């Protein structure tokens, strides 16, 4: 076996050498050095190109700053940023949910944002430590089959889904970040014991398990299940594509104060390497400017987080969903939630 290990070592060495030989000069500029403005920066966008690119075009026209955008899923870009660490080419990360921002913040990948940037968004909808800023809000809602149920038959609390009446008729996406944020909120608002009881009862009530919110919405719209727990904006995006009148699925909002009625946020943070990059900061400030906020209202049907911008039509006011007892930084503490979900076999 001695030859084996020798050969393995040789092989490994040869690979490294061969690959090292390839690393010709012309390395991309490291971001550490970029200070001030060079009229360009790199954005990792966990939000979709169709929705975000027009906004970026607006920014580029307005400022003359060139934005190099890399699109991906928020979870995958989050994993990518963690893997890249300090070597990341990214200057700004635009995230679809607070969970990813919290995870990156905990890994100390974000540079603190200036006071005035953080102040643009009211507390409760942005990071507690000023490492990232909230951009838009998404309400947790109950989506239901409008052909099977009337609005009055839809529960006004997520607690209803523990009753035998709903056994096997509702969908959840327990491995999805948005559902886990909701369960975390439940735990924070109602206590560990109540959350444990809810998860246990729901798990025993034959829930239909989906991988994400989109799949739940599609299943409700196709009449496969009667209701599901999702984020509000998926319905509006679907309505925009196929026409609201063609949708079987309808939305109901849990009553204010119910843990099912929380708001989760999208947001953005600046990576350490770009701490002094004026272009990156200008973009983050642009995201919380009236222009961009108005764009999100009109194009993605999300809640604006900056004061003075009207919420999209047909949505309950953001204030009615704001939960005074809940801090977004509480939602970053996912581990206890995951342990809870795994205890009852949901993840």
């Amino acid at each position: 076996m001695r030859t084996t290990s020798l050969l393995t070592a040789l092989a490994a060495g040869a690979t490294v050498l061969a690959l090292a030989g390839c690393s010709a000069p012309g390395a991309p500029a490291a971001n550490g050095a970029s200070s001030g403005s060079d009229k360009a920066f790199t954005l990792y966008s966990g939000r979709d190109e169709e929705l975000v690119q027009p906004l970026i075009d607006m920014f580029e026209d307005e400022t003359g700053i060139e934005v190099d955008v890399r699109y991906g899923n928020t979870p995958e870009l989050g994993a990518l940023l963690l893997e890249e660490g300090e070597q990341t080419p990214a200057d700004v990360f635009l995230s679809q949910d607070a969970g990813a921002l919290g995870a990156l913040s905990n890994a100390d990948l974000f540079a603190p944002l200036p006071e005035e940037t953080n102040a643009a968004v009211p507390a409760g909808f942005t990071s507690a430590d000023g490492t990232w800023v909230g951009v838009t809000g998404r309400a947790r809602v109950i989506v239901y089959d409008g052909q099977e149920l009337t609005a009055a038959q839809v529960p006004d609390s997520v607690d209803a889904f523990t009753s035998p009446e709903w056994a096997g008729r509702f969908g959840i996406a327990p491995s999805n970040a948005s559902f886990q944020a909701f369960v975390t909120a439940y735990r924070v608002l109602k206590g560990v014991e109540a959350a444990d009881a809810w998860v246990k009862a729901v798990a025993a009530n034959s829930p239909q398990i989906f991988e994400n919110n989109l799949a739940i919405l599609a299943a409700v719209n196709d009449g496969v299940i009667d209701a599901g727990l999702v984020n509000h904006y998926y319905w509006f995006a679907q309505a925009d594509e196929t026409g609201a009148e063609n949708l079987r699925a309808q939305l109901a909002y849990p009553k204010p104060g119910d843990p099912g009625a929380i708001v989760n946020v999208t947001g953005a943070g600046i990576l350490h390497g770009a701490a002094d990059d004026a272009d990156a900061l200008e973009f983050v400030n642009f995201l919380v400017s009236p222009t961009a906020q108005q764009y999100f209202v009109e194009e993605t049907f999300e809640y604006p987080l900056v004061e003075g911008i009207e919420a999209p039509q047909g949505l309950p006011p953001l204030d009615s969903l704001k939960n005074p007892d809940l801090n977004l930084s509480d939602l970053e503490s996912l581990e206890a939630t995951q342990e809870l979900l795994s205890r009852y076999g949901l993840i």
Partner: protein
Amino acid sequence: MTSSHRGTRDRRKGSRSSGAPPWLVALAAVCAAAAAIPLVYLIVRALDAGIAGSVVATLWRPRVLELALNSITLAVAVTGTCLVAGTASAWVLTRVRIPAPGIWILIAALPLAVPSYLAAYGWLVWVPSMNGFWASWLLLSAVCVPYVTLPVAAALRGASGNLHDVARTLGRGPFGAFVSATWPQIRPAAIAGALLVCLYALSDFGLVSLMRYPTLTWGINAAYGASFNRNQAALLALVLVALALAVVTGERSIRGGQDQVAVRGAPPVIPSGRWKLPVAVVLMAAPVLGVLVPVLGLLSRLLEAETLRSIDVPRLLGAVGATLGLAVAGALLATLLALPIAALAARHKSRLVSVIEATGFLGHGLPGIVVGLSLVFFALAVVPALYQSVIVLVFGYAVLFMPKAIGTMRSGIAGVPGSLVEVSRMLGLSPLATWWRVTARLALPSIGVGALLVAISVMKELPATLLLRPTGISTLATELWSRTTVFEFGAAAPYAAALVLVAAVPAVVLSGFRGVSKEDL
């Protein structure tokens, strides 16, 4: 492991362990090292997790056991189904008189062109309630069958029909004759194909997530996506690696000693008669389930979309170009890396050879996100200058899909008679020259088949492409992804159609390789 079946009638030394030239072993080991990158990465991450308590705690959760069991059940069921259905349709394609056999073998190859996530998506349009094990089993089997059908059809073309006749004359029934005479000749091809199916079923995420059948790849994606727990994801992925290694090792022992040498012989053509219906079912099941139904489903969604946006033609063409370029580059590199491993495994047997070959198969048993992240890790550590360049992306494709080339090329190389090699050596040619002028030339069709299989897979690949692509480069798969995430079925449909069409090209070429040879038509 007996290697004393009829295949050793040529004078190849069946199971010598010492004969492998050191340069070949070294070269193959270097190539296998590339495929081992994901494993190194996973071990580093798993060590981060701390070997002691958390490993046991993570792996012993009831949910993890359930996921692993689901993965195993699905992989076994899909592999078995593909083995039976693929062998049956290959037999019909080559041994039964059917109208337009060339067209049928082409149709048999088409499911390869449909990405598993598109097949699932297209089916959900018709049957939204479809979910769970049976749905995943049916659709995965339908899209994977060609991995068995094509190599077995090629082997059957070469296999001698005389033995079958002899067996029938000696009183065996048709099935008995098949088992005793034909099966041994096609077994290596069938099992090599089944191995690819099994690894694919283990590593697939797109289809099982849409069909809501939670497997280990769910757990891995959730660990990355919801909890940003890379270490936990790595532990789950290592479970997958262990399963994949068990499968690869199992395949080696089932395959037995040496690959069979194809013997040319005129195959008998049995008239179909009252067997028309079963024959039609065997031929059409996979193309209908894996291609026709989902494609029609996608088309109907396209018509449903309220706004049919105008197609951005330059952008579509750009994506087609990038897809083709990457597919060609990925196929070339994967073939180059697979060649020494295949050459070594075709002619030599030893524990070292087994380790090298098994390592070469690793990448295919892992979901794309794991292989993608491992190359992020590797590129940043070793060649940061190449990070997010096409080179690393193509290298990633090679790591992922090299196994598709290893299996077919190994059979092809083993099929080159050892006597020819010996003659060439006696005539004074060096081993390398012999290899190039004799073995490589004769094995060329199998090398082509391997390269085409890789090209098709590269075209359909999504998660690793998203992680490794240079910023700004889009393939048909990434364009499709970015449109379906926002419900733009109208805008997504052209990309879905283009992807299936582009991937169908190598599939069609593939069906022509040693499938229906001209003298039979």
